[in-house]
Protein backbone atom coordinates (compact mmCIF):
# COMPACT_ATOMS: atom_id res chain seq x y z
CA UNK A 1 0.00 0.00 0.00
CA UNK A 2 1.21 3.46 -0.86
CA UNK A 3 2.59 5.08 2.34
CA UNK A 4 0.44 8.21 2.04
CA UNK A 5 -2.74 6.16 1.58
CA UNK A 6 -1.71 3.97 4.50
CA UNK A 7 -1.13 7.03 6.69
CA UNK A 8 -4.50 8.36 5.59
CA UNK A 9 -6.27 5.14 6.56
CA UNK A 10 -4.58 5.05 9.96
CA UNK A 11 -5.39 8.73 10.48
CA UNK A 12 -9.08 8.10 9.79
CA UNK A 13 -8.99 5.19 12.22
CA UNK A 14 -7.58 7.48 14.92
CA UNK A 15 -10.32 9.99 14.30
CA UNK A 16 -13.15 7.49 14.09
CA UNK A 17 -12.12 5.56 17.21
CA UNK A 18 -11.57 8.82 19.09
CA UNK A 19 -8.03 7.92 20.07
CA UNK A 20 -7.53 9.31 23.61
CA UNK A 21 -4.19 10.91 22.83
CA UNK A 22 -5.65 12.63 19.80
CA UNK A 23 -8.76 13.72 21.70
CA UNK A 24 -6.60 15.17 24.49
CA UNK A 25 -4.60 17.23 22.02
CA UNK A 26 -7.73 18.49 20.26
CA UNK A 27 -9.42 19.50 23.50
CA UNK A 28 -6.33 21.33 24.75
CA UNK A 29 -6.08 23.19 21.44
CA UNK A 30 -9.72 24.22 21.57
CA UNK A 31 -9.47 25.32 25.21
CA UNK A 32 -6.46 27.50 24.53
CA UNK A 33 -7.74 29.06 21.31
CA UNK A 34 -11.25 29.66 22.67
CA UNK A 35 -9.79 31.37 25.74
CA UNK A 36 -7.63 33.51 23.46
CA UNK A 37 -10.71 34.42 21.39
CA UNK A 38 -12.68 35.38 24.50
CA UNK A 39 -9.89 37.68 25.72
CA UNK A 40 -9.23 38.92 22.20
CA UNK A 41 -12.90 39.91 21.86
CA UNK A 42 -13.07 41.48 25.32
CA UNK A 43 -10.20 43.76 24.32
CA UNK A 44 -10.50 43.96 20.53
CA UNK A 45 -14.23 44.61 20.02
CA UNK A 46 -14.52 47.60 22.40
CA UNK A 47 -11.19 48.92 21.15
CA UNK A 48 -12.25 48.69 17.50
CA UNK A 49 -15.64 50.29 18.23
CA UNK A 50 -14.08 53.06 20.32
CA UNK A 51 -11.63 53.97 17.55
CA UNK A 52 -14.48 53.90 15.02
CA UNK A 53 -16.76 56.39 16.79
CA UNK A 54 -14.19 58.73 18.37
CA UNK A 55 -12.15 61.49 16.81
CA UNK A 56 -8.76 62.11 18.35
CA UNK A 57 -5.28 63.18 17.36
CA UNK A 58 -3.27 60.41 15.79
CA UNK A 59 -6.36 58.40 14.90
CA UNK A 60 -5.10 57.67 11.39
CA UNK A 61 -1.76 56.46 12.72
CA UNK A 62 -3.53 54.18 15.19
CA UNK A 63 -5.63 52.71 12.38
CA UNK A 64 -2.59 52.14 10.16
CA UNK A 65 -0.68 50.47 12.99
CA UNK A 66 -3.67 48.34 13.94
CA UNK A 67 -4.16 47.20 10.35
CA UNK A 68 -0.46 46.45 10.11
CA UNK A 69 -0.54 44.38 13.28
CA UNK A 70 -3.03 42.04 11.61
CA UNK A 71 -0.01 40.60 9.83
CA UNK A 72 1.93 40.13 13.05
CA UNK A 73 4.23 37.10 12.56
CA UNK A 74 3.34 34.51 15.17
CA UNK A 75 6.96 33.57 15.85
CA UNK A 76 7.72 37.18 16.72
CA UNK A 77 4.82 37.22 19.18
CA UNK A 78 6.12 33.93 20.57
CA UNK A 79 9.59 35.36 20.96
CA UNK A 80 8.40 38.54 22.72
CA UNK A 81 6.12 36.65 25.09
CA UNK A 82 8.95 34.18 25.72
CA UNK A 83 11.31 37.02 26.66
CA UNK A 84 8.69 38.57 28.94
CA UNK A 85 7.87 35.32 30.72
CA UNK A 86 11.31 33.71 30.83
CA UNK A 87 12.90 33.54 34.24
CA UNK A 88 15.13 36.59 33.61
CA UNK A 89 12.28 38.52 32.01
CA UNK A 90 10.10 41.16 33.67
CA UNK A 91 7.24 38.71 34.24
CA UNK A 92 9.49 35.74 34.97
CA UNK A 93 8.35 35.63 38.59
CA UNK A 94 4.92 34.44 37.46
CA UNK A 95 6.49 31.17 36.42
CA UNK A 96 4.01 30.55 33.63
CA UNK A 97 6.37 29.94 30.72
CA UNK A 98 5.70 26.54 29.10
CA UNK A 99 2.15 26.41 30.44
CA UNK A 100 -1.18 26.69 28.61
CA UNK A 101 -1.60 30.12 30.24
CA UNK A 102 1.44 31.41 28.37
CA UNK A 103 -0.04 30.01 25.15
CA UNK A 104 -3.33 31.80 25.76
CA UNK A 105 -1.44 35.06 26.33
CA UNK A 106 0.55 34.66 23.12
CA UNK A 107 -2.52 33.82 21.03
CA UNK A 108 -4.48 36.69 22.57
CA UNK A 109 -1.73 39.12 21.57
CA UNK A 110 -1.71 37.60 18.12
CA UNK A 111 -5.42 37.91 17.37
CA UNK A 112 -6.48 41.04 19.30
CA UNK A 113 -5.23 43.42 16.56
CA UNK A 114 -7.10 41.39 13.94
CA UNK A 115 -10.35 41.54 15.91
CA UNK A 116 -9.88 45.25 16.69
CA UNK A 117 -8.96 46.25 13.13
CA UNK A 118 -11.78 44.32 11.46
CA UNK A 119 -14.42 45.40 13.98
CA UNK A 120 -13.27 49.02 13.64
CA UNK A 121 -13.92 48.80 9.92
CA UNK A 122 -17.41 47.35 10.33
CA UNK A 123 -18.40 49.75 13.11
CA UNK A 124 -17.00 52.76 11.24
CA UNK A 125 -19.07 51.94 8.16
CA UNK A 126 -22.22 51.63 10.25
CA UNK A 127 -21.38 54.78 12.24
CA UNK A 128 -21.68 56.79 9.02
CA UNK A 129 -25.25 55.61 8.72
CA UNK A 130 -26.27 55.76 12.42
CA UNK A 131 -24.37 58.81 13.58
CA UNK A 132 -26.98 61.55 13.18
CA UNK A 133 -29.82 59.39 14.44
CA UNK A 134 -27.98 58.27 17.57
CA UNK A 135 -26.74 61.76 18.36
CA UNK A 136 -30.25 63.06 17.80
CA UNK A 137 -31.58 60.62 20.39
CA UNK A 138 -28.94 61.85 22.83
CA UNK A 139 -26.55 58.89 22.69
CA UNK A 140 -23.02 59.42 24.02
CA UNK A 141 -20.00 58.16 22.08
CA UNK A 142 -19.39 55.40 24.60
CA UNK A 143 -23.04 54.42 24.38
CA UNK A 144 -22.91 54.54 20.59
CA UNK A 145 -19.95 52.15 20.56
CA UNK A 146 -21.83 49.56 22.62
CA UNK A 147 -25.08 50.08 20.74
CA UNK A 148 -23.28 49.56 17.42
CA UNK A 149 -21.44 46.46 18.63
CA UNK A 150 -24.77 44.93 19.61
CA UNK A 151 -26.51 46.05 16.44
CA UNK A 152 -23.74 44.59 14.27
CA UNK A 153 -23.50 41.36 16.25
CA UNK A 154 -24.21 39.14 13.27
CA UNK A 155 -21.51 40.73 11.14
CA UNK A 156 -19.06 40.56 14.02
CA UNK A 157 -19.49 36.79 14.31
CA UNK A 158 -17.39 36.46 11.17
CA UNK A 159 -14.60 38.49 12.78
CA UNK A 160 -14.64 36.44 15.94
CA UNK A 161 -14.28 33.32 13.84
CA UNK A 162 -11.47 34.81 11.81
CA UNK A 163 -9.73 35.39 15.12
CA UNK A 164 -10.39 31.84 16.23
CA UNK A 165 -9.16 30.49 12.92
CA UNK A 166 -5.92 32.40 13.22
CA UNK A 167 -5.41 31.31 16.84
CA UNK A 168 -6.16 27.65 16.23
CA UNK A 169 -4.02 27.37 13.13
CA UNK A 170 -0.87 29.25 14.19
CA UNK A 171 2.10 27.20 15.28
CA UNK A 172 5.03 29.56 15.88
CA UNK A 173 3.88 31.33 19.03
CA UNK A 174 2.53 28.32 20.92
CA UNK A 175 5.58 26.29 19.98
CA UNK A 176 7.93 28.87 21.52
CA UNK A 177 6.01 29.77 24.68
CA UNK A 178 4.40 26.35 25.24
CA UNK A 179 7.45 24.27 24.54
CA UNK A 180 5.38 21.47 22.95
CA UNK A 181 5.49 19.35 26.10
CA UNK A 182 3.67 16.05 25.63
CA UNK A 183 0.39 15.99 27.54
CA UNK A 184 0.84 19.55 28.88
CA UNK A 185 1.28 22.07 26.10
CA UNK A 186 1.12 19.97 22.97
CA UNK A 187 -1.64 21.25 20.68
CA UNK A 188 -2.80 20.28 17.20
CA UNK A 189 -0.46 22.48 15.22
CA UNK A 190 2.67 21.76 17.25
CA UNK A 191 1.93 18.03 17.15
CA UNK A 192 1.52 18.14 13.39
CA UNK A 193 4.86 19.94 13.04
CA UNK A 194 6.63 17.52 15.37
CA UNK A 195 5.11 14.26 14.13
CA UNK A 196 5.70 15.22 10.50
CA UNK A 197 9.38 15.82 11.14
CA UNK A 198 9.54 12.50 13.04
CA UNK A 199 7.84 10.72 10.16
CA UNK A 200 4.75 9.69 12.18
CA UNK A 201 2.32 10.71 9.48
CA UNK A 202 -0.96 9.09 10.70
CA UNK A 203 -1.24 11.24 13.87
CA UNK A 204 -0.18 14.39 11.98
CA UNK A 205 -2.65 13.71 9.20
CA UNK A 206 -5.46 12.82 11.61
CA UNK A 207 -4.98 16.11 13.45
CA UNK A 208 -4.78 17.93 10.14
CA UNK A 209 -8.15 16.49 9.15
CA UNK A 210 -9.69 17.55 12.46
CA UNK A 211 -8.20 21.04 12.36
CA UNK A 212 -9.50 21.58 8.86
CA UNK A 213 -12.94 20.21 9.76
CA UNK A 214 -13.24 22.48 12.78
CA UNK A 215 -12.32 25.60 10.84
CA UNK A 216 -14.68 24.67 7.98
CA UNK A 217 -17.55 23.80 10.32
CA UNK A 218 -17.19 27.04 12.25
CA UNK A 219 -17.20 29.09 9.09
CA UNK A 220 -20.21 27.25 7.75
CA UNK A 221 -21.95 27.88 11.07
CA UNK A 222 -21.09 31.57 10.96
CA UNK A 223 -22.43 31.83 7.44
CA UNK A 224 -25.73 30.24 8.41
CA UNK A 225 -26.07 32.45 11.50
CA UNK A 226 -25.44 35.57 9.44
CA UNK A 227 -27.82 34.61 6.64
CA UNK A 228 -30.63 33.65 9.00
CA UNK A 229 -30.16 36.75 11.12
CA UNK A 230 -30.10 39.01 8.10
CA UNK A 231 -33.37 37.58 6.86
CA UNK A 232 -34.96 37.87 10.28
CA UNK A 233 -33.59 41.23 11.45
CA UNK A 234 -32.77 42.98 8.18
Amino acid at each position, binding site marked *: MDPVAEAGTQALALVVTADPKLVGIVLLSLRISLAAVVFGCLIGLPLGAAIAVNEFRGRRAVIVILNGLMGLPSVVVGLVVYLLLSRAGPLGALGILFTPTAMVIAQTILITPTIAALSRQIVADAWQEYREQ*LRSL*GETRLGAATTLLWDLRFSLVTIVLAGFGRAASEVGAVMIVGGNIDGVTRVMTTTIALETSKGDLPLALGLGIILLSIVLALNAGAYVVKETAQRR*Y*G
Partner: protein
Amino acid sequence: MTIGVDVRAPPSLLPLDLDRVEFAAGSRRIIQGLSVTLDAGPRSVILGPNGAGKSVLLRLCHGLLEPTAGTIAWNSPELPGGARRQAMVFQRPVLLRRTVLGNVMYALKLARVPRGEREERAREALRKVGLDAQADHAARVLSGGEQQRLALARVWALRPEVLFLDEPTASLDTGATHEIEKVILALHAAGTKIVMVTHNLGQAHRLGDEILFLHQGRLVERAPADRFLKHPASLEAASFLEGELPW
Protein backbone atom coordinates in the same frame (compact mmCIF):
# COMPACT_ATOMS: atom_id res chain seq x y z
CA MET B 1 -55.53 77.90 46.35
CA THR B 2 -53.94 75.27 44.20
CA ILE B 3 -52.76 75.93 40.73
CA GLY B 4 -52.83 73.16 38.16
CA VAL B 5 -49.26 73.69 37.10
CA ASP B 6 -46.32 71.57 38.16
CA VAL B 7 -43.92 74.16 39.54
CA ARG B 8 -40.98 71.83 38.94
CA ALA B 9 -41.67 71.66 35.20
CA PRO B 10 -38.94 73.55 33.34
CA PRO B 11 -40.05 76.61 31.38
CA SER B 12 -40.87 76.05 27.72
CA LEU B 13 -38.02 75.48 25.26
CA LEU B 14 -39.69 77.90 22.89
CA PRO B 15 -39.35 80.40 21.43
CA LEU B 16 -36.23 79.40 19.54
CA ASP B 17 -34.24 82.42 18.53
CA LEU B 18 -31.79 82.38 15.62
CA ASP B 19 -29.69 85.50 15.37
CA ARG B 20 -27.59 86.19 12.26
CA VAL B 21 -26.76 82.51 11.94
CA GLU B 22 -24.10 81.51 9.43
CA PHE B 23 -23.03 78.05 8.42
CA ALA B 24 -20.23 77.29 6.01
CA ALA B 25 -18.75 74.00 4.88
CA GLY B 26 -15.27 74.81 3.60
CA SER B 27 -15.69 77.81 1.36
CA ARG B 28 -19.36 77.10 0.65
CA ARG B 29 -21.69 79.34 2.63
CA ILE B 30 -24.80 77.27 3.18
CA ILE B 31 -26.69 79.51 5.64
CA GLN B 32 -26.14 83.25 5.44
CA GLY B 33 -27.12 85.76 8.10
CA LEU B 34 -30.35 84.00 8.98
CA SER B 35 -32.42 85.49 11.79
CA VAL B 36 -35.76 84.03 12.76
CA THR B 37 -37.83 83.28 15.84
CA LEU B 38 -39.85 80.09 16.05
CA ASP B 39 -42.74 80.34 18.48
CA ALA B 40 -44.79 77.64 20.13
CA GLY B 41 -47.97 76.79 18.32
CA PRO B 42 -48.13 76.97 14.55
CA ARG B 43 -46.82 74.20 12.34
CA SER B 44 -43.89 75.74 10.51
CA VAL B 45 -43.02 74.36 7.10
CA ILE B 46 -39.68 75.20 5.50
CA LEU B 47 -39.76 75.35 1.72
CA GLY B 48 -37.07 76.14 -0.80
CA PRO B 49 -35.23 74.80 -3.82
CA ASN B 50 -32.51 72.17 -3.58
CA GLY B 51 -29.40 73.52 -1.93
CA ALA B 52 -31.26 76.33 -0.19
CA GLY B 53 -29.99 75.06 3.17
CA LYS B 54 -33.26 73.64 4.52
CA SER B 55 -31.83 70.42 5.95
CA VAL B 56 -28.80 72.24 7.35
CA LEU B 57 -31.10 74.75 9.04
CA LEU B 58 -33.00 71.91 10.74
CA ARG B 59 -29.74 70.31 11.88
CA LEU B 60 -28.53 73.61 13.28
CA CYS B 61 -31.76 74.07 15.23
CA HIS B 62 -31.71 70.49 16.45
CA GLY B 63 -28.09 70.80 17.54
CA LEU B 64 -26.49 68.29 15.18
CA LEU B 65 -24.47 71.12 13.62
CA GLU B 66 -22.86 74.16 15.20
CA PRO B 67 -23.26 77.52 13.47
CA THR B 68 -20.00 79.03 12.23
CA ALA B 69 -21.28 82.44 13.34
CA GLY B 70 -24.34 83.87 15.04
CA THR B 71 -26.35 82.34 17.87
CA ILE B 72 -29.13 79.82 18.24
CA ALA B 73 -30.85 80.17 21.59
CA TRP B 74 -33.72 78.31 23.15
CA ASN B 75 -35.87 80.13 25.68
CA SER B 76 -34.83 77.56 28.27
CA PRO B 77 -31.97 75.45 26.93
CA GLU B 78 -31.74 71.71 27.38
CA LEU B 79 -29.38 70.77 30.17
CA PRO B 80 -26.07 69.36 28.96
CA GLY B 81 -26.15 65.64 29.60
CA GLY B 82 -29.88 65.81 30.39
CA ALA B 83 -32.69 64.17 28.47
CA ARG B 84 -33.50 65.84 25.17
CA ARG B 85 -36.69 67.87 24.95
CA GLN B 86 -36.69 68.25 21.19
CA ALA B 87 -36.42 65.53 18.60
CA MET B 88 -35.88 64.97 14.91
CA VAL B 89 -37.21 62.60 12.27
CA PHE B 90 -35.00 62.05 9.25
CA GLN B 91 -35.81 61.33 5.64
CA ARG B 92 -34.59 57.77 6.04
CA PRO B 93 -35.08 56.51 9.58
CA VAL B 94 -32.22 54.56 11.11
CA LEU B 95 -33.65 51.64 13.04
CA LEU B 96 -31.72 49.23 15.19
CA ARG B 97 -31.65 45.47 14.70
CA ARG B 98 -34.14 44.97 17.49
CA THR B 99 -37.88 44.58 17.67
CA VAL B 100 -40.23 47.45 16.92
CA LEU B 101 -40.87 47.79 20.65
CA GLY B 102 -37.15 47.53 21.37
CA ASN B 103 -36.41 50.52 19.15
CA VAL B 104 -38.83 52.73 21.06
CA MET B 105 -37.59 51.44 24.42
CA TYR B 106 -34.01 52.25 23.39
CA ALA B 107 -34.94 55.90 22.84
CA LEU B 108 -36.72 55.98 26.20
CA LYS B 109 -33.65 54.56 27.88
CA LEU B 110 -31.51 57.33 26.39
CA ALA B 111 -34.12 59.83 27.59
CA ARG B 112 -33.60 58.45 31.12
CA VAL B 113 -37.19 57.30 31.48
CA PRO B 114 -37.30 54.93 34.48
CA ARG B 115 -37.05 51.29 33.43
CA GLY B 116 -40.49 50.40 34.81
CA GLU B 117 -42.27 53.01 32.70
CA ARG B 118 -40.57 52.34 29.38
CA GLU B 119 -42.61 49.46 28.03
CA GLU B 120 -45.98 51.03 28.75
CA ARG B 121 -44.94 54.32 27.19
CA ALA B 122 -43.46 52.55 24.16
CA ARG B 123 -46.61 50.49 23.58
CA GLU B 124 -48.78 53.58 23.92
CA ALA B 125 -46.69 55.37 21.27
CA LEU B 126 -46.89 52.35 18.96
CA ARG B 127 -50.68 52.34 19.34
CA LYS B 128 -50.80 55.98 18.31
CA VAL B 129 -49.05 55.27 15.02
CA GLY B 130 -50.91 52.00 14.45
CA LEU B 131 -47.94 49.67 14.91
CA ASP B 132 -49.00 47.98 18.15
CA ALA B 133 -49.72 44.71 16.34
CA GLN B 134 -46.13 44.65 15.02
CA ALA B 135 -44.50 45.42 18.38
CA ASP B 136 -42.56 42.15 18.43
CA HIS B 137 -41.54 42.19 14.76
CA ALA B 138 -38.00 43.00 13.70
CA ALA B 139 -37.86 46.72 12.95
CA ARG B 140 -35.61 46.57 9.91
CA VAL B 141 -37.88 44.31 7.89
CA LEU B 142 -40.87 46.68 8.07
CA SER B 143 -41.99 48.49 4.90
CA GLY B 144 -40.68 52.00 4.29
CA GLY B 145 -43.89 53.62 5.49
CA GLU B 146 -44.00 51.46 8.61
CA GLN B 147 -40.36 52.26 9.36
CA GLN B 148 -41.13 55.96 9.23
CA ARG B 149 -44.17 55.49 11.45
CA LEU B 150 -41.93 53.66 13.89
CA ALA B 151 -39.52 56.60 13.79
CA LEU B 152 -42.48 58.83 14.67
CA ALA B 153 -43.55 56.50 17.48
CA ARG B 154 -39.99 56.63 18.78
CA VAL B 155 -40.10 60.41 19.04
CA TRP B 156 -43.71 60.47 20.22
CA ALA B 157 -42.78 58.30 23.18
CA LEU B 158 -40.24 60.97 24.13
CA ARG B 159 -43.03 63.59 24.24
CA PRO B 160 -40.82 66.29 22.77
CA GLU B 161 -41.76 69.96 22.96
CA VAL B 162 -40.42 70.49 19.45
CA LEU B 163 -40.17 68.04 16.57
CA PHE B 164 -38.04 68.70 13.50
CA LEU B 165 -38.88 66.65 10.41
CA ASP B 166 -36.60 66.49 7.38
CA GLU B 167 -38.68 65.43 4.35
CA PRO B 168 -40.16 62.49 6.24
CA THR B 169 -42.25 61.30 3.30
CA ALA B 170 -39.80 61.93 0.45
CA SER B 171 -39.28 58.25 -0.30
CA LEU B 172 -42.82 57.03 0.41
CA ASP B 173 -45.89 56.40 -1.75
CA THR B 174 -49.11 58.39 -1.33
CA GLY B 175 -50.78 55.90 0.99
CA ALA B 176 -47.84 55.82 3.38
CA THR B 177 -47.46 59.60 3.09
CA HIS B 178 -51.05 60.06 4.15
CA GLU B 179 -50.49 57.86 7.21
CA ILE B 180 -47.40 59.84 8.20
CA GLU B 181 -49.22 63.15 7.80
CA LYS B 182 -52.01 61.91 10.07
CA VAL B 183 -49.45 61.07 12.75
CA ILE B 184 -47.75 64.47 12.42
CA LEU B 185 -51.10 66.25 12.83
CA ALA B 186 -51.89 64.11 15.88
CA LEU B 187 -48.49 64.89 17.41
CA HIS B 188 -49.16 68.57 16.92
CA ALA B 189 -52.61 68.22 18.44
CA ALA B 190 -50.94 66.61 21.46
CA GLY B 191 -48.92 69.78 21.96
CA THR B 192 -45.69 69.33 20.02
CA LYS B 193 -44.36 72.20 17.92
CA ILE B 194 -43.78 70.98 14.35
CA VAL B 195 -40.95 72.31 12.19
CA MET B 196 -40.81 70.47 8.91
CA VAL B 197 -38.91 70.57 5.65
CA THR B 198 -40.76 69.34 2.59
CA HIS B 199 -40.52 69.46 -1.16
CA ASN B 200 -44.14 68.68 -1.60
CA LEU B 201 -46.37 71.75 -1.98
CA GLY B 202 -49.51 69.73 -1.37
CA GLN B 203 -48.02 68.59 1.91
CA ALA B 204 -46.98 72.14 2.77
CA HIS B 205 -50.58 73.17 2.21
CA ARG B 206 -52.02 70.28 4.24
CA LEU B 207 -49.63 70.52 7.18
CA GLY B 208 -48.31 74.07 7.23
CA ASP B 209 -49.76 76.91 9.25
CA GLU B 210 -46.89 79.12 8.20
CA ILE B 211 -44.23 78.82 5.53
CA LEU B 212 -40.60 79.81 5.85
CA PHE B 213 -39.13 80.15 2.39
CA LEU B 214 -35.38 79.69 2.07
CA HIS B 215 -33.33 80.65 -0.94
CA GLN B 216 -29.55 80.36 -1.17
CA GLY B 217 -29.17 80.13 2.57
CA ARG B 218 -31.32 83.16 3.37
CA LEU B 219 -34.81 83.44 4.76
CA VAL B 220 -36.52 85.24 1.92
CA GLU B 221 -40.13 85.11 3.02
CA ARG B 222 -42.22 84.06 5.98
CA ALA B 223 -46.00 84.04 5.67
CA PRO B 224 -49.15 82.13 6.57
CA ALA B 225 -49.34 79.03 4.35
CA ASP B 226 -52.48 80.03 2.46
CA ARG B 227 -51.18 83.43 1.55
CA PHE B 228 -47.71 82.19 0.66
CA LEU B 229 -48.93 79.44 -1.63
CA LYS B 230 -51.42 81.71 -3.43
CA HIS B 231 -49.69 85.08 -3.37
CA PRO B 232 -45.99 84.79 -2.66
CA ALA B 233 -44.48 88.20 -1.97
CA SER B 234 -40.97 87.56 -3.28
CA LEU B 235 -39.84 86.91 -6.82
CA GLU B 236 -37.79 83.89 -5.71
CA ALA B 237 -40.79 82.27 -4.04
CA ALA B 238 -43.03 82.97 -7.02
CA SER B 239 -40.63 81.32 -9.44
CA PHE B 240 -40.11 78.42 -7.02
CA LEU B 241 -43.85 77.82 -6.74
CA GLU B 242 -44.18 78.00 -10.51
CA GLY B 243 -41.47 75.43 -11.01
CA GLU B 244 -42.63 72.95 -8.37
CA LEU B 245 -45.34 70.49 -9.17
CA PRO B 246 -48.28 70.88 -6.81
CA TRP B 247 -48.28 67.41 -5.21
